[in-house]
């Protein structure tokens, strides 16, 4: 070692020890002779040979390991957990807009045309309808209830539809109905959880979280999974509906407000400049990095990523959510009025977000729980208002997506969490003041439109009363498997190790891709 540079007197102990170490290493290297070299070379080559020669005997084990590890790899650079990954196979759908009608709209007042039920309106419900069934409120012998609204056929597809959705009915040729959806939950919160997370219990990741985990998101300046609420109340399932469950929390949905700041406290407080904000974040980042280096908790990385995204969002989110930026005629098409917290505004925002590469957009519109307990819940009053609130915006969203060519690779899903009974609700066995229906988990209708879905068709069928499925039942997990297939995944392969299981969205029961509705 020839380097005998004078050290500053106040050199730290760590530096000294490092130098001693490198000095020792060089001395050791100098002690190496040609004989050492030849000996290492000889034995080294020999070891290499033996290693490769013996490797073949280890093969059976290796083969086993490989067939086991057919699982897909979703690991990413920890500093960009939302970065894009290609799907398993070529996907028809790049983004999803899920319009969840919280409270479960009555299919019998919208899409299920049942003339026989109308004919028997007011008759006592047959006993076979009640045997072995549990209801939320119906008791005793309820009366059958025909549709409250007239039906007519529209479009080339000849779908039947009631008169409540005059705007949407112009788009039925782009829509695929599943009239044989089924669930095993008859209360709102668990049923909504089942629809959105594939499981009726708390703690499971939302569909949107799985999608973000699977393919990430394109626009790193916006959350990849955005939730917008309207209807005056949060859905019964609460924030669990867009939680990331056991997936890293960076994949959870971000609830945005449709007026004001999209996310509360997103803007800098008065007197704080963007550069000051940047410096502050850099300092916090440094501390968080140290924490991560010490404890290795991925949630720390999530936190860093969230801070960074919030910083980038300050520019882009405000712009994306600002429907003032849309021309007046577009706003009019949706019936959107800036400043309101309405489904119309949310639909317009959803289109703007979809354009900007947001992967999963969830809209909840509350107020469909038409039991008939009060005017707001009455099929002939509040229900009609809900229809008015969603009809025009939904139609405008479909039209807009179609016109902009986005319906090619966007999947729009519309539906509630279960259906409603063909019997009139009779709370406590009494005839009620308003007309309503109870929950029916046995059959309900949802519709899909967009990429990869056959337009203008109906899948599945219920009996003449619209009470039970008679053809092609579709479970929630089947719907999920189908949606994942459209997004380019085998639902068995999109999984995450948790509690000793390869967890997946469709859970443990076999799920089927509903190939009949695929274009």
């Amino acid at each position, binding site marked *: 070692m020839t380097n005998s540079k004078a050290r500053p007197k106040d050199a730290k102990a760590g530096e000294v020890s490092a130098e001693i170490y490198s000095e020792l290493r060089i001395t050791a290297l100098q002690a190496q002779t040609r004989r050492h070299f030849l000996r290492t070379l000889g034995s080294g080559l020999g070891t290499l040979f033996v290693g490769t020669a013996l490797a073949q005997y280890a093969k059976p084990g290796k083969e086993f390991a490989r067939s086991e590890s057919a699982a897909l790899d979703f690991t990413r650079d920890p500093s960009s957990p939302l970065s894009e990954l290609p*799907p398993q196979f070529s996907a028809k759908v790049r983004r999803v807009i899920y319009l969840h009608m919280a409270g479960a709209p009555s299919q019998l007042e919208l899409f299920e045309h049942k003339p026989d039920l109308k004919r028997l309106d007011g008759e006592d419900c047959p006993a076979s309808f009640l045997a072995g069934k549990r209801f939320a409120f119906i008791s005793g012998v309820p009366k059958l209830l025909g549709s409250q609204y007239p039906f007519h056929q529209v479009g080339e597809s000849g779908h039947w539809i009631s008169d409540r959705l005059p705007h949407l009915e112009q788009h039925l040729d782009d829509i695929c109905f599943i009239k044989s959806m089924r669930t095993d939950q008859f209360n709102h919160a668990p049923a909504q959880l089942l629809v959105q997370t594939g499981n009726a219990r708390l703690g499971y990741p939302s569909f949107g979280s799985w999608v973000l985990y699977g393919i990430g998101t394109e626009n790193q300046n916006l959350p990849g999974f955005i939730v917008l609420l309207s209807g005056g109340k949060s859905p019964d399932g609460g924030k669990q509906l867009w939680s990331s469950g056991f997936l890293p929390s960076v994949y959870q949905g971000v609830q945005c407000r449709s007026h004001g700041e999209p996310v509360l406290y997103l803007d800098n407080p008065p007197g704080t400049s963007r550069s000051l904000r940047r410096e502050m974040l850099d300092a916090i980042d440094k501390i968080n990095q140290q924490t991560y280096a010490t404890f290795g908790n991925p949630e720390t990385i999530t936190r860093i990523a969230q801070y960074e995204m919030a910083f980038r969002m300050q520019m882009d989110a405000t712009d994306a959510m600002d429907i003032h930026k849309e021309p007046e005629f577009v706003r009019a098409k949706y019936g959107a009025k800036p400043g309101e917290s309405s489904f119309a505004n949310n639909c317009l925002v959803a289109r703007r977000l979809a354009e900007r590469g947001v992967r999963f957009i969830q809209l909840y519109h509350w107020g469909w729980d038409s039991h008939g307990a009060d005017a707001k819940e009455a099929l002939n009053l509040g229900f009609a208002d809900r229809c008015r609130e969603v009809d025009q915006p939904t139609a405008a969203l479909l039209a807009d997506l179609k016109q902009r060519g986005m319906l090619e690779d966007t999947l729009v899903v519309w539906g509630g969490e279960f259906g409603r009974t063909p019997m009139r609700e009779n709370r406590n066995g009494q005839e009620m003041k308003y007309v309503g229906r109870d929950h029916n988990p046995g059959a309900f209708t949802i519709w899909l439109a967009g990429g990869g879905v056959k337009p203008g068709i109906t899948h599945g069928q219920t009996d003449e009363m619209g009470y039970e499925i008679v053809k092609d039942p579709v479970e929630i997990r089947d719907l999920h498997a189908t949606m994942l297939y459209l997004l380019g995944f085998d639902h068995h392969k999109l999984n995450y190790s948790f509690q000793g299981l390869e967890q997946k969205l469709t859970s443990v029961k076999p799920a089927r891709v509903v*190939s009949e509705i695929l274009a």
Partner: protein
Amino acid sequence: MTAPGRRLLQEYRRGLLLLLPIFIVVALLVFLPPDGRERAEWMQFVGRFHPLVVHFPIALVLLVPVFQLVGRRPQFSYLRASCGFLLGLATFAATAAATLGWCLGRSGGFSGPLVTQHMWGGVLVTLTCGLCWLSRGRLSQSETAFGISLAIAVMLVAWTGYRGGQLSLGADHLTEHMPAGLRHVLGVSDRRTASSKADPNTFYGARVQPIFGARCVSCHGPDKHKADLRLDTYQGVMRGGKDGPVVQAGNTQGSDLLRRIALPANHDDFMPKGKKALSSDEVKLIELWIGAGASDTLAKDSIKNAPGDSSASNAVAEIIFPETDPAAVRIMRSAIAPEVAKLQKRFPNILDYESRSSADLRLNASILGAKFGDNDLADFGAVAEHITIADFSRTSITDRSAFTIAGMKRLRVLRLTNTATTDATLQRLSALDQLESLNLFGTQVTSAVLPAISKLPKLAHLYAGQTSISRESVVSGGLAGKVVF
């Protein structure tokens, strides 16, 4: 025979004696050529030594010019003296190798133009080698003749060796892993990206080949041909593998392919090995196809009651999830992977493969908005032909990018929504014969481009909302029903 003739014969007796075995080999080749049938085991056993022995004469022949050249220097002149010996040895070795080669070719089930070429190449090498030896020994005064025949011998060795390599390692064994840049310069096409498609109107093309494509070709395809079997083309299916044909037309009992896919998954002979068994419908389809004569011309709907048939009422085609073979994907991507990685680093999140099993690219520049311009797009030239979906919505690209876009020859979807693109770009996109969806929403494009656009053969959707294209202009012509306003 004349006196000088006899003298010549005397003089060359040894040489002619040497040529005798060569003539015998030639006679064997002419009268008993390789015909694709397998023969006696011992002959195959001996024949298998051909690839081993053949390197001996190759090395010897190549040594001769080296010795000749180096021997020009006085201090190495002794090398030249050994050239005669080398050539003699080479001739003997070449004769032996040719004989073994015939054994292999005749008995090992070989046939085809490659074999014929390699075979005659080998004979010519042996002959030229012998002639070199003779001319070296006897006509040492004629340096030129010797030089020329030596050069011919070397060239023949190279050509024959290449053909032999093609026989054992595949037709493109030298260029298979050629870097994309070099490939481009030399104009060598990439076989792996060009795929042969069966006619979708035949039963084979519509029903059978897709099953092979989804379930078999990851091992028995262009990149791997396990058991020497290729199921990616009809010819490959009918040719069979190392154990002979796997499909016997009309004979479902004798078709090994059908037997193997119908076995229980834990059987030793089960195929696809280590993967999920084919569904009963898939097996049934293949059985019906073989039973009907295993033809590649039989019309799509000529077999009645085939499973999953649209004519059969209640059969529903279940979704088969395509298998991904990471190794095959890596090979497919090898030509563009470095360039893609570079671009992904420069432009994060806008360029990616269409899927984990694909080498096609998806470019979504709309995420960058106005920050993405013509100069940025120009950098994608190297991967342009692999881009199948390109979204330039709201970017600041202009007509200057027309050339780059026109180079994306495999584009299926092109989105120019809300860009400054004008008719000039659209007029130049005639080469995009795969284009299915063209989005011009919110551009200044006018009806003048419609004739050019209507010539795109696969176009199914044209988005012309908020453009200067008028509804009246598309009422007639090829675009009617395809335009969305």
